[in-house]
């Protein structure tokens, strides 16, 4: 029998920006198991949200994640609008799409840079982040902030995109197309990148379906899932764009899917801007009250589908706010993709789903490898009931309430 060694990655590791803890079980060079330990990033946002009014909640969910800092608010305001029966002016829908797509653009560029960094290809990192900078400037122009745009509100958006700004936005987008095509050609042509990425960390189509993977992770495996196409909301039903899918589900395909998606995003933004030039109207319907009800909002974040659920009792605060972020579905796929690969490839495989732990850390117990399982919510409830029963016995208390 060969000996299994554990390589800890994290929780504070130079490779990661966020605290998370991977335990790689290796036999020689080969990875045979993976434990993922989370919880370093749990901030209790769902509970905090119940303390805030609907308008404040949007700012709170914005701070779930800095990279998808418009996807969460977007899903959240849509859930509020769904629950409270709020109308949104048409111009606001187009503006929301523009901001959402700009975010996808900057997020994919960011990932591309980090992926280059993980491969030890720092030139890609520097170039990708250099071309990401103009996008942040666009954000500053449109919203006033480089990150955390604060654009969404129930009923519309906070700021309009003025017609005078549109040529400047268009100019930046035109300037981006060249570099993105350059990246596309560099990744597809470079034999070294191909050698590092092709056939590495493969997630088959069936596995992607089994794990309920979402976003580019699923699309790279050939599952054509995209909220923008499946439930056309905002302006997505009125613009023309393609869903990019891959075939093999390896890291190479994931990279290509993301790069090609940025080109689609530019296409969407351009079409929206064209409409915004002439479309009149307010950008905010200023809802006075949110009616009682339940609502669900979804949006295709750069990493996949994000879902927000809001329950309103007719007051000014959510009664319950539930969030499901895309990385929550994508991170567990690492458990299959990384097994059997070499240690050197592990970092890029772990990074290939573009994990975002600040999004993911709602409440979960993960346990990988042999004899280990992922706890479902039913099991969690059962465990908590068992623990309560045990505590009751220890303290000698009967009945439903603990007296302390």
């Amino acid at each position, binding site marked *: 029998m060969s000996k299994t060694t554990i390589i800890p990655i994290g929780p*504070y590791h*130079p490779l990661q920006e966020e605290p998370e803890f991977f335990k790689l079980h290796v036999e020689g060079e080969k990875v045979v198991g993976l434990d993922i330990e989370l919880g370093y990033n749990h*901030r209790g946002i769902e509970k*905090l949200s119940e303390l805030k009014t609907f308008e404040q909640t949007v700012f709170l969910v914005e701070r779930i994640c*800095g990279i998808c800092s418009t996807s969460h608010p977007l899903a959240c305001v849509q859930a509020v609008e769904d629950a409270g029966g709020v109308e949104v002016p048409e111009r606001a829908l187009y503006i929301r799409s523009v901001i959402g797509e700009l975010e996808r653009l900057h997020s994919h560029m960011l990932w591309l840079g980090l992926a280059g960094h993980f491969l030890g290809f720092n030139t890609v990192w520097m*170039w990708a*982040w250099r071309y990401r900078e103009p996008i942040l400037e666009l954000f500053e122009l449109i919203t006033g902030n480089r*990150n955390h745009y604060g654009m969404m509100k129930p009923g519309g958006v906070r700021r309009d995109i003025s017609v005078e700004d549109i040529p400047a936005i268009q100019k930046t987008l035109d300037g981006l197309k060249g570099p993105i095509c350059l990246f596309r050609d560099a990744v597809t042509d470079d034999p070294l990148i191909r050698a590092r990425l092709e056939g590495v960390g493969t997630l088959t189509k069936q596995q992607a379906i089994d794990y309920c993977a979402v976003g580019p992770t699923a699309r790279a495996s050939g599952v054509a899932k995209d909220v923008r196409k499946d439930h056309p909301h905002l302006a997505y039903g009125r613009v023309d764009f393609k869903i990019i899918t891959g075939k093999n589900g390896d890291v190479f395909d994931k990279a290509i899917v993301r790069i090609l998606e940025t080109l689609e995003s530019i296409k969407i933004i351009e079409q929206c801007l064209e409409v915004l030039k002439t479309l009149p109207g307010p950008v905010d319907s200023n809802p006075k009250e949110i009616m009682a009800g339940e609502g669900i909002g979804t949006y295709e974040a750069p990493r996949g589908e994000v879902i927000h659920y809001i329950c309103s009792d007719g007051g000014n605060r959510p009664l319950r706010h539930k969030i499901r972020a895309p990385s929550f579905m994508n991170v567990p796929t690492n458990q299959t993709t990384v097994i059997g690969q070499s240690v050197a490839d592990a970092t890029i495989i772990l990074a290939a789903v573009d994990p975002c732990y600040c999004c993911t850390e709602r409440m979960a117990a993960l346990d990988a490898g042999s004899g280990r399982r992922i706890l479902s919510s039913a099991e969690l409830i059962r465990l908590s009931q068992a623990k309560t029963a045990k505590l009751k016995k220890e303290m000698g208390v009967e009945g439903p309430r603990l007296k302390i």
Partner: protein
Amino acid sequence: MSFAVNMLTRSLNVFHLGGSACNNCDIEIIDTLTPRYDLERFGITLVGSVRHADVLLITGIFNKKSAIRLKRVYQEAAKPVLVIAIGACACTGNMFQKSYNWNVSVDKYIPVDAYLPGCPPKPEAMIMAMVKLVKKLRGAK
């Protein structure tokens, strides 16, 4: 200027310690290293181990799980080490103060030398914080 201060403030080795941050502060830190701002021009680099660090950059709130690690990481750093709290989260707890998982602010755990508010602070502000700190250490009035 003492030898220690001279050595400490010449070429800063920075270790980035992200707590329960939303990522934006962390990304803006990395952003300062990329071509637009390029802090490495001044000899400021990110290092992989806290034992090599002259400066600790703290981002995000620290929850019950990560706060223990924060203390451990600080103890492992070779002294003297400068600590900069970056972003509203690290400075005050931001909007997470009422969370059941928020302990107390960073400066209750470890001594903090500079606070840099903002959500997130712009890269320019981070560079300015570095410059101010170095100037102060060198005793420039």
